[in-house]
């Protein structure tokens, strides 16, 4: 008990940097995504089919209007391509991996790792998200570019802001998903809770329709929730609905939500783990 943990060493005997372990976990999470290429291919085909339907609905809505709520028809197509591309990377249809380890008791083994539990899952999910983006996101964007042509971020500043926005969207989304999964500490069947959470996420993050198309009251109400930070902001920064200073402000809101969610999720996990000990694991 009094001994400090021995510093981790690699083969050469050199000290590992504190980031080496999460980096290794992330790399494994990344590589695991490439285990089932056939499933990825079918997923891509299904996503493309739904993408075609969604583009048809949006173009029919636009009709001959050149612009609606800051979006052109080409922006709307880009919006569809982006949302379809990010379904898997940002787990927009839900995520129950952590819930399962709690229900099966595997979380007890995860707690033995020399890494903070939330950090361990964050690293793993970051790797998973990157893998899915390469495997499913990039081909989807390429397909949309070939089929309809996409709008791309404007210049180096646009790319920088978009990249930051994607990273923050992942952070907010991951923390929200993890928070929902923490319900497993309190309920033997948290799947229903999850389904509820994913439905709210789908509508609130702008996956189903760009939030700018909603009535003003609904938009104002949603702006008090973290959901737009999980996808809608990325789209608006990407297509340039938000640009320059407005885009920086949008990124600031995303960052604030990420910090807020981090605090709530870490606290909930802490309380959940204490409860787990009470229950005897």
């Amino acid at each position, binding site marked *: 008990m009094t001994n400090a943990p021995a510093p981790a060493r690699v083969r050469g005997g050199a000290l590992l940097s504190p980031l080496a372990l999460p980096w290794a976990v992330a790399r494994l999470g990344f590589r695991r995504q490439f285990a089932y290429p056939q499933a990825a291919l079918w997923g891509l085909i299904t996503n493309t089919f739904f993408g075609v339907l969604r583009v048809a609905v949006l173009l029919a809505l636009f009709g001959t209007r050149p612009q609606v709520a800051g979006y052109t028809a080409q922006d709307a197509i880009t919006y569809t391509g982006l949302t379809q591309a990010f379904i898997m990377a940002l787990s927009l249809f839900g995520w129950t991996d952590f819930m399962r380890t709690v229900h099966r008791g595997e979380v007890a083994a995860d707690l033995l790792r020399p890494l903070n539990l939330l950090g361990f899952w964050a690293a793993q999910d970051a790797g998973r998200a990157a893998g899915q983006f390469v495997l499913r996101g990039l081909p989807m964007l390429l397909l949309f570019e070939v089929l309809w042509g996409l709008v791309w971020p404007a210049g180096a500043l646009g790319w920088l802001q978009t990249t930051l926005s994607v990273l923050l969207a992942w952070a907010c989304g991951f923390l929200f998903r993890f928070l929902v999964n923490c319900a497993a500490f309190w309920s033997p069947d948290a799947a229903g809770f999850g389904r509820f959470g994913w439905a709210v996420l789908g*509508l609130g993050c702008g996956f189903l329709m760009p939030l700018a198309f909603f009535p003003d009251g609904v938009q104002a109400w949603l702006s008090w929730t973290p959901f737009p930070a999980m996808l809608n902001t990325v789209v608006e920064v990407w297509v340039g609905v938000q640009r320059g200073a407005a885009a920086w402000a949008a990124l600031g809101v995303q960052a604030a939500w990420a910090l807020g969610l981090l605090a709530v999720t870490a606290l909930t996990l802490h309380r959940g783990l204490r409860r787990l000990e009470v229950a005897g694991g």
Partner: protein
Amino acid sequence: MASALRSAAHYLQLYGRLLGAQVRSQATYRGALVLDALGTLLITAAEFGALALVLPRFGGLGGWTLGEICLLYGLAELSFVLMDLLFGGFDAPNLSAHVRVGSFSTFLLRPVPLVVQVFGSDFALRRVARIGLAAAIFAYGVTHTAHAWTLGDAALLAGCVLGLICFFGGLFVVGGTLTFWTVDSVEAMNVLTYGGRTLISYPMGIYGEWLRKTFTYLIPAAFLSYFPVLHLLGRPLPDGLPPAAAFLSPLVGPAVLALAFAFWRVGLRRYQGTGT
């Protein structure tokens, strides 16, 4: 004849018992069930709500009002949910799970017809809530279209629901049968089932020519709800099709289902179990 009726009643009773057992087990955790039903409901409500929320800004969808779209959307959703309750056991993920763990082989050993068991193997109580929502969307469509409804129209719509249940049920049976050949990757069927449901929820005129024709002549989905609704709204059918094409729903649906069960019998002969 009398004996056929008696055995039909017997199978129905068996089916009822299988459902009863599942209802009891799912009702054990009442709180979880309510939350699950709400979540399932919310997914559809969000999808439809997103469309309903943006329509005022655009005025309509390809010349269709919200009420008119509700007819299409409600028909597709109502039929699909009813079908899902009935045919859930044939859905590829469920059936392939039975094939993989070997419980499908147990089905074959029991003195109850296989089809009755599969029909009674996945009754998800949480889906019941979705029926109410689908019916409400459909009812909104009926009351918000400029159309004087007659008894004949009601019969036509009932025929649509029946046809759609058979049609999507047939797709589920085909997807389930495919799991006898390959335990994984029957996801291609999802494009036809869930994709087909989404496709026919909107006026098919908004799609490209090739997509609309594929889902009219290759996969006869357009006959099941789009053509009947076009007819009810007094709009001409595409491709110069005669008005009679709007009345084929109760024929096309069961025909698809019959073909699907023929395929099911071929698959069953091939089924050898996974050795589990």
